[in-house]
């Protein structure tokens, strides 16, 4: 099964990297998020909730640009039925496509963050390296991954029914662009002690209370991810997907 997932991902990555816009997307995001935002925010880039909100927003948007193509693109290019006529299990097809979109989104986010940290260190050099705190990094990476999976799973559901990539992109954008603002807004309203913790400073709040707040946010996202992923896997029936073609 995992061999099949990797096979689908192999093909998806190959196809993705054959398109020039993918590289331009990577450059433009690294430029906007990594350079412009880092210069604008200064040292806050590595420790503010505003910066963290971009860790949520950026992968969500990046997943949307790729996931619309997952099934609608294959349908448009007349390759979907041939793919469904192979021995690949349905689960492997869905997970392979989702995995590629999530991987692509996380790669761009990581590149943009890396460039940002570099820019902050050059622009605001204090003689000591300016780094992201482990808590900030771990929490941010967790949120990026979970949001990417959430939007990706929902995108799969839309893409498998859409006739064209354009239709899938429009539907996904209309539904999810407004929704991605919600978790970003929540991050901006984090309790004071947690904001302090994000900046890498010690706080007086007991560790259990921090764990409850962080656990609740992460737990909600994990639950939503699992539910949407199960729905996507169950709704992906070859017979229905073929008849949509």
């Amino acid at each position: 099964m995992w061999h099949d997932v990797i096979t689908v991902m192999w093909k998806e990555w190959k196809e993705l990297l054959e398109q020039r816009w993918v590289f331009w997307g990577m450059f433009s995001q690294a430029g906007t998020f990594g350079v412009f935002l880092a210069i604008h925010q200064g040292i806050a880039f590595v420790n503010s909730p505003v910066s963290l909100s971009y860790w949520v927003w950026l992968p969500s948007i990046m997943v949307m640009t790729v996931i619309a193509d997952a099934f609608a693109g294959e349908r448009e290019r007349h390759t979907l039925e041939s793919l469904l006529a192979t021995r690949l299990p349905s689960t492997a097809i869905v997970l392979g496509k989702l995995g590629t979109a999530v991987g692509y989104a996380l790669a761009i986010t990581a590149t943009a963050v890396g460039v940002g940290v570099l820019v902050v260190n050059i622009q605001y050099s204090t003689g000591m390296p300016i780094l992201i705190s482990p808590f900030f990094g771990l929490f941010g990476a967790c949120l990026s991954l979970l949001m990417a999976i959430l939007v990706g799973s929902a995108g799969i559901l839309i893409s498998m029914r859409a006739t064209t990539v354009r239709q899938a992109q429009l539907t996904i954008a209309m539904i999810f662009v407004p929704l991605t603002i919600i978790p970003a807004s929540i991050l901006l309203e984090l309790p004071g002690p947690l904001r302090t913790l994000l900046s890498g400073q010690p706080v007086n709040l007991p560790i259990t209370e921090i764990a409850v707040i962080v656990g609740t946010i992460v737990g909600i996202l994990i639950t939503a991810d699992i539910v949407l992923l199960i729905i996507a896997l169950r709704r992906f029936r070859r017979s229905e997907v073929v008849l949509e073609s």
Partner: protein
Amino acid sequence: MMSDNGGQKPRNAIHIEDLSVVFHERRALDHLTLDVPAGIIFGLLGPNGAGKTTTIRVLLGLVHPSSGHAHVLGMDSLTHSQDIRQQCGVLLDPGLYERLSAEDNLRFYSRIWHLSARESTERIQESLTHIGLWERRKERVSTWSRGMKQRLAIARLLIHHPELIILDEPTTGLDPIAAAALHQDLLDLIQRTRVTILLTTHNLTEAEKLCSLVGIINAGTLRALGPPGELRERLGGMRFEISGRNFPPELLQQWRQLPGVLSLQLQGSVLTLALRPGTATAPLLTQLIQAGAEIQEARRYTGNLEDVFLSIIEGQ
């Protein structure tokens, strides 16, 4: 592989029994019953919308039947669709990834069928060399001609040495040279291996050239089944073609009423009659000459597969 017959190789590669598929109250297949013996090229002929593609989809478990059942290589298409797809090579539309190179297209399929890296490399080289495209393996498929793509698609479906090959209108859009090359590939393949090939087509010359058994389907029902030669003899009837000028319309009108004349068609300077077996043609020629027609050539022949096909489809 799960098999419904205790692991024995079935005599029929495909067995379809009383199969119906209904989409939104439209009957795509209507009580279709059909057996395809193993090891032959079988042609499924029919006009657009006859049910050919739906039949393929049912066989591969991509569409569920409303009633009846289909067995492929001894496995039920509803309960063992995954195992069936494991044993099949399928060509649909031709379904290549045009952004990828020819080599990557084949590599993807060899990975799907879990070929080892060595096996995969050997088979890719062998198949691309066989179709004369090895030197162009790194090129994007989108830059290739339709004929080259179709040959690559055939090479791709053969990469895992399937037991059953399904080709949905494989020569559509190909020029005569590319189509002839593809025909030769298929004939070579059936001689080299013991695969079964199911081919759907509108091209009756192609079916006549390649298939040892054909089925004619229309409105989801099988209308005729048999070897092309036998169908021609049984259903093609006798044709009488006369080339000339000044065919008197009144005489032709009279002929239409004759019991031995099934149909009469005048196209330009060619008069074609479909006759019942045993109908004498000499008196017809005499009548024409006496009525003042100028005859250049006359010939009698047995109807070809196209005539069989048209008489079945038009006779509905």
